[in-house]
């Protein structure tokens, strides 16, 4: 029995520590620790909902659009606004652009380095690489020979740059299993992906002024009135990204999968999934979104989302108290009490800045897998068709449960990427039709400045919840529960592990120094730790007097 620790976990957003007990080559216990506290909800207190939209985006530089949207929806619910149809379409495009950006970056530039060794591509036979790419049906946009020469120049210089401290030699050199030709292909797509995620962001930059941190999403609609030039740019960029995604991402995933098949057999989390839904249709029903809202039980039976079933517990986190608080009455006081080496103090074992949210008393996994499982069970045609085809191609037709694994979670997000890329084309067409039909409304001014509302939405990495109470145009209580808060949760009041902790338990560790399978599993969640850590104030003022933090929250 020994301890294996990854700290810092890299190629994620934020600061994360993974500590594992390893027994007989397998993880027997795990502690997931979020390392940073910033206090967003306290900063937006007493500011306007319009300001909050700008400020809360800064929680995350990878998914700022989602935070802006959730904050905007919360404000619109508070003000009683239903946004114009053009604003709905443009916000879908804005969000879709961010999803594409985030998923492309995550798969190729963050997660892929757990599977692909670019340095091994030096050994590739270039002609074989072309043949293999054709056989795998994946895109050939780059000159493999030139790329290999470029890598050779890099290697000859000797400085490792972003490959410093790599784990390519993990498990005695057996952890990275791709043939050099596939490494070369995937390295070419790594570099293309950097351009493609930038192009996707450029779409968000066009509609939002800049990305990260967009400027035009605001309560009431959008502050962006597209010109004909804008429409042409949108149309062209959306098509360009679609073409690359559709010819590259799913084929690459299918080419990689056979070399890492065992990762289909471990990494399942808590087995319950939550999705708040994303991309509104014109009925603005969250359960009818393009990716619909829903919550599943262990048998993947889907039910509608009920806000009052959301609770939070922080008995294992660095906050005072051990009560469980129900939505939207969260109360928190941060208080660092030292990192307890997991298991040394089972009574007062606080080890993370992340709290433990629950739905109906149980922890939930969120993210691309959750969204697609809900969409699959709600019979969204595109998702059903492509998931079925994908399972068939993996050699496990009809076995949706296989998706509940490290590789399944990693792979299924490419289907979502393809779905979003397809929808982007539809939305641009829809926008053009709407404008052609004479609709020139993009914004509705609020008629009230007092109220309360919740924005249920999805960030690329899962279910996102913003809730606020507004009095005379000023925020009196703001709460955020972010996807990774769900996924990276510590143990709950009953001592049951959080979703990622459950995923880690049971995975094989062939190298306690470089536990690559643990890293793969963490990355399959696409964690966003900076977001995950948050602090809340009571929305209702019910427990107002009890919150007397040293820095003067009142």
């Amino acid at each position, binding site marked *: 029995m020994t301890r294996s620790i990854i700290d810092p976990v890299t190629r994620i957003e934020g600061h994360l520590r993974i500590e594992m007990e390893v027994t007989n080559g397998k993880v027997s216990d795990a502690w997931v620790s979020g390392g940073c506290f910033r206090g967003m909800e306290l900063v937006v207190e007493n500011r306007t909902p319009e300001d909050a939209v700008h400020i809360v985006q800064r929680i995350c530089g990878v998914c700022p659009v989602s935070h802006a949207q959730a904050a905007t929806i919360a404000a619109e619910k508070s003000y009683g606004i239903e946004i114009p149809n053009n604003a709905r379409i443009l916000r879908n495009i804005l969000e879709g652009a961010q999803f594409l950006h985030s998923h492309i970056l995550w798969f190729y530039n963050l997660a892929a380095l757990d599977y692909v060794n670019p340095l091994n591509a030096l050994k590739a036979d270039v002609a074989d690489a072309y043949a293999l790419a054709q056989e795998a049906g994946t895109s050939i946009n780059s000159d493999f020979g030139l790329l290999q020469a470029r890598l050779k120049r890099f290697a000859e210089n000797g400085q490792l740059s972003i490959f410093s401290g790599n784990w390519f030699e993990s498990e005695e050199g057996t952890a990275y299993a791709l043939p050099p030709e596939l490494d070369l292909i995937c390295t070419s797509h790594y570099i293309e992906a950097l351009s493609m995620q930038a192009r996707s962001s450029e779409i968000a930059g*066009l509609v939002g002024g800049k990305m990260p941190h967009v400027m035009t999403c605001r309560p009431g609609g959008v502050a962006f009135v597209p010109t004909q030039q804008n429409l042409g740019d949108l149309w062209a960029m959306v098509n360009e990204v679609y073409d690359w995604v559709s010819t590259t991402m799913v084929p690459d995933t299918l080419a990689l999968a056979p070399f890492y098949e065992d990762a289909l057999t471990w990494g399942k989390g808590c087995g319950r999934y939550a999705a708040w839904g994303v991309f509104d249709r014109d009925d603005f029903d969250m359960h009818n979104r393009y990716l619909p809202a829903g919550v599943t039980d262990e048998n993947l039976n889907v039910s509608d989302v009920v806000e009052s079933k959301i609770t939070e517990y922080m008995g294992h986190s660095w906050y005072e108290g051990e009560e469980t608080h129900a939505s939207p009455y969260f109360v928190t006081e941060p208080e660092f009490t030292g990192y307890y080496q997991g298991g040394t103090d089972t009574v007062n074992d606080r080890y993370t800045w992340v709290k433990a949210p629950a739905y109906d008393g149980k922890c939930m996994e969120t993210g691309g897998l959750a969204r697609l499982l809900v969409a699959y069970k709600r019979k969204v045609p595109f998702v059903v068709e492509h998931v079925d085809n994908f399972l068939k191609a993996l050699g496990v037709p009809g076995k949706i449960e296989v998706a509940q694994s490290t590789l399944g979670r990693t792979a299924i997000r490419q289907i979502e990427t393809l779905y979003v890329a397809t929808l982007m084309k539809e939305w641009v067409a829809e926008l053009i039709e709407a404008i052609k039909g004479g609709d020139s409304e993009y914004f509705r001014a609020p008629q009230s400045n007092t109220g309360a509302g919740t924005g249920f939405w999805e960030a690329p990495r899962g279910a996102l919840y913003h809730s606020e109470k507004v009095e005379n145009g000023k925020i009196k209580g703001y709460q955020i529960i972010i996807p990774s808060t769900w996924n990276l949760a510590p143990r709950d009041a009953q001592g049951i592990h959080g979703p990622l902790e459950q995923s880690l338990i049971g995975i094989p560790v062939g190298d306690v120094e470089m536990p690559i399978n643990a890293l793969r599993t963490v990355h399959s969640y696409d964690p966003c730790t900076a977001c995950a850590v948050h602090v809340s104030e009571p929305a209702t003022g019910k427990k107002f007097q009890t919150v007397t933090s040293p820095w003067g929250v009142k």
Partner: protein
Amino acid sequence: MEREAIVSEFYEKLDSRGVTRRDFMKLCGAVAAAAGIAHITATDVAYALEQSVIGAKEGNLYPVIWMEGASCTGCTESFAQIETPDPATVVLELISLNYSETLGAGAGWSFEEAREQTIAAGNYIFIYEGAVLEKWEGQALRVANEPGIEHVTHTAAKANAVVALGSCAVNGGWMAAYPNPAGAIGVQQCLKKHGIETPVVNVPGCPANPEWLEAVLVDVLFLQQLPDLNAEGKPSLLFTQTIHDNCQRRGHFENGEFVYQFGTREEALGYCLYPLGCRGPQTKANCGITRWNNRRSWCVESGGPCIGCTTANPANSNENWVETNTPFLKRHRDLRVGDFRLSPTTIALSVTGLLAAALVIHGFGMKITGRMNGGADFEKVRKWDKRHPDRSIGCYDLSDEECAALEAEAGVAAPAKPVGRTTAAKTGTGTATKTGTTGTTGTRTRAKTAGQDGADAAKKADEESKGGKA
């Protein structure tokens, strides 16, 4: 081998006896496991014997450590949007990015080892993104089981220079806004407190524009110098002029053509966003020139008033951009003294307020006195406009028929009548909007439905424009 950062003679000896490093590591692990020794011992053994994890310590690439403090990763994300050179070229052919939490292949102890070896090898640039957090003795940010502050000071001490990238790194950014719950400060403040004298280049922005970082890197890599810095330690070429100085809507400001409300005709016409709280006049950055996302657009072009995200006094985290500029949509900010808050509606406050007041005199004041009516200074009608009635600037109240007549007169082929370009508003009072002309080409601009406020503002603007003409 002499170029390796850390050369282990021990390994060479092992090697000469036919024992590979991998065999040895395996042995270490086996011994540790058999003896039931905690992982730390095994790690310590490995630490002592590990070869270089950064490869050569010198070469064609400039070593860079890019650390994320209390960040949102937005500045790294922003860097990933850079186009010329693209990020792959930067990390393969310009810098050796030995430590980057977002892009680095390594993780855990070997990743931290890469940082240590880079520091030991020296001659590197340290880019720090995100705020420094002081709360709970720095435990508000924990990395590799240590407070984040330790990482900053340790890494900065031996660096050639520190780039504080983004407003959070410059002075705490939004995290430092009231009540500053995590004790956020900027890098310069932190280093000063710890007596570290490494020069700091402050590159504010939320996020920082990747071209700004590139400009700094070009100075260091190509010109082998640090950029010329202004009094706030920011590159003076980038952060001396205001957004307003280079704003593409500046002409509308001079003409007194403003957007008073979102969802109005003025917004669709691309008028100046000043009345909506645009912080362009008091915000120093060259966004209008550099632009964003492959130069595709920028905040003001898209329709978002500037929120002053580069406002960051590196010596005072209270003067962060959120505290200084909220409420973003208003021209005047709340006054906060401790827990006491005042929301002024008419009085101008602080330097920001005074500057705003000065601009009101410049912009609105001139409009009121009639000096800027229709866009001309000191003239009722510009001479050029008089000679070119078909292409004159500043006529915004022509009917469709008048437009067509002018276009026909000027020999401009009138475009096909747009379908449904005027629409009854879905909210508000259902005011029908007008089609107008703008610019010198006489092109029709699509009008936009307006809410009550917007319609009023448009009406007001029309009346003023008519009054001035008369």
